[in-house]
């Protein structure tokens, strides 16, 4: 399977160059996010305009995508971000990654700008640039359906943009099927800026593995083991919405733009059990036994006919808690609407929540917005979602995302919850120090998927935790001790996971007794014949990938001062729930930063040292 190639596609002159992926690059960066980061750091820098033709839009499947493993339907899309100005890198599921691999490619590097709308057709070792004028203006579902019809194949999969991407909304996403999305960082706008409507793939090429029979046996044992786990069973029936109850009780939600942290009894209508009446079964990404996604159908009422996949905890947070909205059907509808229009729903919820707080405070008024913007009013929220995607009225201002604060001014930035210009999602992490710290330091900005630890929430024995992390980590989630180590360790692990193309739900994300370094070595041995790979080498690969990302964002001007949290985390205490009165102590936070940089081998400003670069062999 190491015969998969990179295609360099220049949309300005239509040239396509196919290249092998060198073996030593594989061993240093694996694939997926790893090789994407290597390429991005090489091809982009401070002179790269995020919406300029030169910005490389990089698609990368994991080195184990589409093989029997731990949920191998994943891939990453990366570029310089138009939303933050820094790193855009988003991991997505579905079937599209697998289809790209069957079509012969692991990475696509798209540069340039086409003079008219086009799509790429990736098929059995070839990439074709095709006219997409007829697709421009279509929503994401219509586009994918039209592509399947045009290609005459229901098994053709595509990753597409909606009108939001076409209109260069700064937080437009790239979507595949009804739900799998490269959501964060405005990758859809990068695609739109290139006049690239879609990447469609269809492949019939063999993927060879080193030890087929052994791999099958190993996969069987792994699946059987995982399926016995309670949390896998829970995710497979309730999906991520199961977290809502816990978040609400503990005070880990963002309510009304982080003004509150829980909804109390009132929020119980948003608990996962209430989704069951809309669920028509679960859906899985390629190669995954967890199947954590609901297929929903609203049959009656105002939103009758709504059919889609989801919603996730993130969506319920974004359009429920964060908007003070308890109308579950409107939340499901809003999530689907974002997916159709091509908007990252999590960012959309954050910005609309921010605007609503500005309205509450009189910083903006009905005159600015065109209609009243009240908490718990789904109609205005839904109107605004559409206005953002179409860049209509006040929606045009919000479509600028984080930079809308410059347009509005009047102290509005104080209420904007972002880290490195990337909006915080529907959760509030003041209570759990490791979570908060992870968001603060994430290379992409406010990204729980770069390091989400969670292990200190389970009351596990101290010895066990110390052994897992190779050093002292407090078992108390409200403690700062050792949490820098914890975040560092998870950053390395998830960098590897995103480069393997496996799913975070099948590693140390929800349970410490999940596949990790050794299990990944076993997979690499059976799949690729890498017999000598060791857990330590994998950890070094994780460090190399993470440090490459760090070099990239440092080069764009980020440093220690940007490894921080929204002021609210330091200045305001949690108002309710079990986490009442929690906040982040600034001195302790700075101490964690010191520990964290040292573990990575970076200097006190968060810049990788020469010795670290040499050790990791990063050019």
């Amino acid at each position: 399977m190491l015969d998969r190639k990179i295609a360099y596609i220049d949309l300005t002159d239509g040239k396509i160059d196919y290249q092998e992926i060198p073996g030593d690059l594989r061993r240093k960066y694996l694939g997926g996010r790893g090789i994407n980061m290597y390429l991005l750091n090489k091809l982009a820098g401070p002179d790269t305009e995020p919406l300029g033709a030169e910005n490389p839009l990089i698609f990368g499947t994991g080195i184990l995508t589409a093989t029997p493993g731990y949920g191998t339907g994943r891939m990453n899309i990366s570029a310089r971000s138009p939303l933050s100005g820094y790193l855009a890198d988003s991991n997505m599921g579905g079937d599209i990654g697998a289809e790209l691999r069957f079509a012969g490619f692991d990475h696509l590097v798209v540069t340039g700008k086409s003079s008219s709308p086009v799509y790429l057709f990736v098929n059995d070792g070839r990439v074709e640039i095709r006219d997409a004028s007829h697709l421009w203006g279509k929503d994401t579902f219509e586009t994918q359906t039209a592509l399947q019809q045009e290609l005459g194949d229901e098994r053709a999969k595509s990753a597409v943009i909606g009108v939001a991407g076409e209109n260069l909304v700064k937080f437009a996403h790239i979507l595949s099927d009804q739900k799998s999305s490269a959501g964060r960082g405005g990758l859809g706008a990068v695609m739109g800026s290139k006049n690239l409507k879609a990447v469609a793939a269809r492949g019939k090429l063999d993927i060879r593995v080193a030890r087929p029979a052994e791999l099958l046996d190993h996969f069987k044992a792994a699946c059987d083991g995982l399926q016995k786990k309670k949390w896998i069973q829970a995710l497979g029936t309730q999906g991520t919405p199961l977290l809502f109850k816990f978040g609400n009780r503990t005070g880990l939600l963002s309510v009304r733009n982080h003004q509150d942290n829980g909804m109390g009894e009132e929020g119980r209508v948003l608990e996962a059990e209430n989704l069951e009446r809309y669920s028509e079964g679960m859906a899985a990404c390629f190669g995954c036994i967890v199947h954590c996604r609901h297929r929903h159908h609203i049959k009656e009422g105002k939103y009758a006919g709504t059919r889609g996949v989801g919603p996730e905890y993130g969506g319920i947070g974004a359009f429920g808690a964060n908007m003070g909205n308890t109308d579950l059907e409107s939340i499901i509808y809003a999530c689907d609407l974002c997916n159709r229009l091509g908007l990252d729903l999590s960012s959309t919820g954050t910005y609309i929540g921010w605007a609503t707080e500005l309205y509450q405070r009189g910083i903006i008024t009905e005159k600015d917005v065109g209609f009243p913007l009240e908490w718990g009013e789904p109609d205005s929220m839904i109107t605004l979602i559409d206005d953002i995607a179409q860049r209509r009225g006040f929606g045009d201002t919000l479509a600028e995302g984080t930079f809308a604060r410059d347009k509005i001014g009047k102290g509005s930035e104080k209420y904007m919850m972002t880290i490195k210009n990337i909006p915080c999602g529907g959760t509030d992490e003041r209570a759990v120090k490791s979570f908060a710290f992870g968001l603060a330091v994430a290379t992409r900005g406010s990204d729980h998927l770069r390091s989400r630890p969670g292990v200190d929430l389970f009351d596990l024995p101290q010895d066990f935790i110390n052994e897992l992390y190779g050093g002292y980590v407090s078992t108390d989630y409200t403690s700062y001790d050792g949490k820098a180590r914890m975040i560092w360790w998870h950053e390395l692990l998830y960098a590897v996971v995103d480069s393997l193309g496996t799913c975070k739900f099948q590693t140390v994300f929800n349970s410490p007794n999940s596949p990790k370094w050794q299990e990944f070595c076993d997979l690499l041995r059976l799949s690729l014949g890498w017999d000598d790979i060791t857990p330590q080498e994998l950890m070094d690969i994780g460090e190399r990938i993470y440090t490459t990302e760090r070099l990239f964002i440092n080069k764009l001007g980020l440093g220690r001062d940007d490894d921080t949290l929204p002021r609210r985390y330091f200045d305001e205490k949690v108002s309710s729930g079990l986490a009442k009165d929690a906040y982040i102590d600034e001195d302790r936070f700075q101490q964690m930063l010191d520990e964290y940089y040292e573990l990575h081998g970076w200097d006190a400003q968060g810049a990788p040292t020469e010795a670290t670069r040499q050790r990791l062999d990063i050019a």
Partner: protein
Amino acid sequence: MRIKVEADKCTGCHICEMVCSLHHEDVINLERAAIRVSKDDFGDLIYTPMVCRQCKKMVCLDGHSEGDQQEHRGKYRWEDASAIEKCPFNAVFSFQDSVVHCDLCGGEPRCVQYCSVQAITVDTGTEDAA
């Protein structure tokens, strides 16, 4: 014996296809799989595993002798491409120059062993073609 399909349980993971091709051909290629999951991604979101139903009367091999039909039952690769058109269930597939057909892995269908939701199970009966 045949594979019984309950589409409403299928999550669309494609594991059955991956396992089928790896078991029979030592490579991963869903085009080589004798089971295919048809996904209605933008309609009613139903995922339907399509696989040979082991019909008593093999319409797909109309014109072949009884003995020849029985011999085909246990085979994974067939040559007569007309079978694809003739199967009323769209349950045999073409790959390159041959036809791919579910041979039940000689009595222990691998796909069934790996399906995490029992959307496909072993049924000891056969079926009458529609």
